[in-house]
């Protein structure tokens, strides 16, 4: 059996938990356990959310995917780091709202530092970037054009990226499929 740990990372209130909640609802039939959320009374993630599911077999190995989120609030970096331990793949969820531009960049930089603490490199680890909340455009909230987000966050990394809306589910599954496939490929390389 191969257990794959995928962590959703990103600034506070960007929608990491919402991503997992959507996956949990949408793929309920394929998920055997309940989603675990450690949160504060204000519904903010305190430690992590956890959602495990089986993927079936690939090349004779049973694949078990474990999705985690980190707490996004700035003050929780110590716990964010703990969740990243043993990570196999990361989804970086960026907040497309104009006013969050700085926070996205800061969070991505911190991901880079936190991975270094485990001798992992953001340039080598399977990574997918999601520009979340694109639906807000229709509600008159100023959001950054994808080209700007891409330039800010993905100009050096050059990893697969998606516009998404975790609340409506737009591209949530696409993001997940992409990170699962890149992570499984990278684990296969390590195993074989």
């Amino acid at each position, binding site marked *: 059996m191969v257990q794959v740990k995928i962590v959703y990372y990103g600034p506070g209130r960007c929608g990491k938990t919402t991503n997992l909640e959507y996956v949990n609802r949408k793929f309920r039939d394929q998920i055997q356990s309940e989603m675990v959320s450690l949160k504060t009374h204000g519904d903010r993630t305190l430690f992590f959310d956890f959602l*495990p599911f089986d993927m079936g077999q690939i090349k004779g190995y049973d694949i078990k995917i474990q999705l985690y989120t980190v707490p996004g609030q700035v003050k929780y970096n110590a716990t964010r780091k703990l969740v990243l331990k043993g990570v196999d793949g990361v989804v970086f969820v960026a907040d497309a709202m104009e006013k969050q531009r700085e926070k996205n960049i800061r969070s991505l930089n911190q991901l880079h530092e936190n991975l270094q603490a485990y001798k992992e490199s953001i340039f080598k680890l399977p990574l997918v970037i999601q520009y979340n909340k694109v639906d807000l455009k229709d509600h008159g909230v100023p959001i950054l054009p994808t080209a700007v987000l891409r330039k800010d966050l993905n100009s050096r990394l050059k990893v697969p990226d998606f516009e998404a809306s975790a609340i409506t589910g737009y591209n949530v599954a696409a993001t997940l499929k992409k990170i699962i496939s890149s992570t499984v490929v990278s684990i296969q390389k390590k195993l074989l």
Partner: protein
Amino acid sequence: MNYGIVSQEQLEQIDTILSSKLIKLGVDCVIIIDMAGNIITAKDNGESKYDVYSFAALAAGNFATVDAMAKLVGEAEFSLLFHKGQESNIHFSKIDDELLLISMFGKDISLGFLRLNVVEAIEQIRKVWEASNG
């Protein structure tokens, strides 16, 4: 998963140790996990119905938190953790830097007796582990 790959043979040896040292004693469920929250193996008495995967994720988080607290007060580690409830108890013990042994047991077993057996089980597991991981 940076501790390498566990062979089927190793797993079976470890399972035997867990059964003979802990399950036989009356422990409801024993899990070995790594510090990232992955399950290496789980054994139970056939009656317990724990969601071991969620349990492993939470246990790893719990242990990591306590470890971070240890560092804050100047301890290298708190290698042992124990949670006591009305009907059931949970005991955590570190096997090495990567592995954790978790025992869930009822009120019929005394903590001292459990700890004695956990220590012996861990010694044996370490030997199995070192034999092929150097």
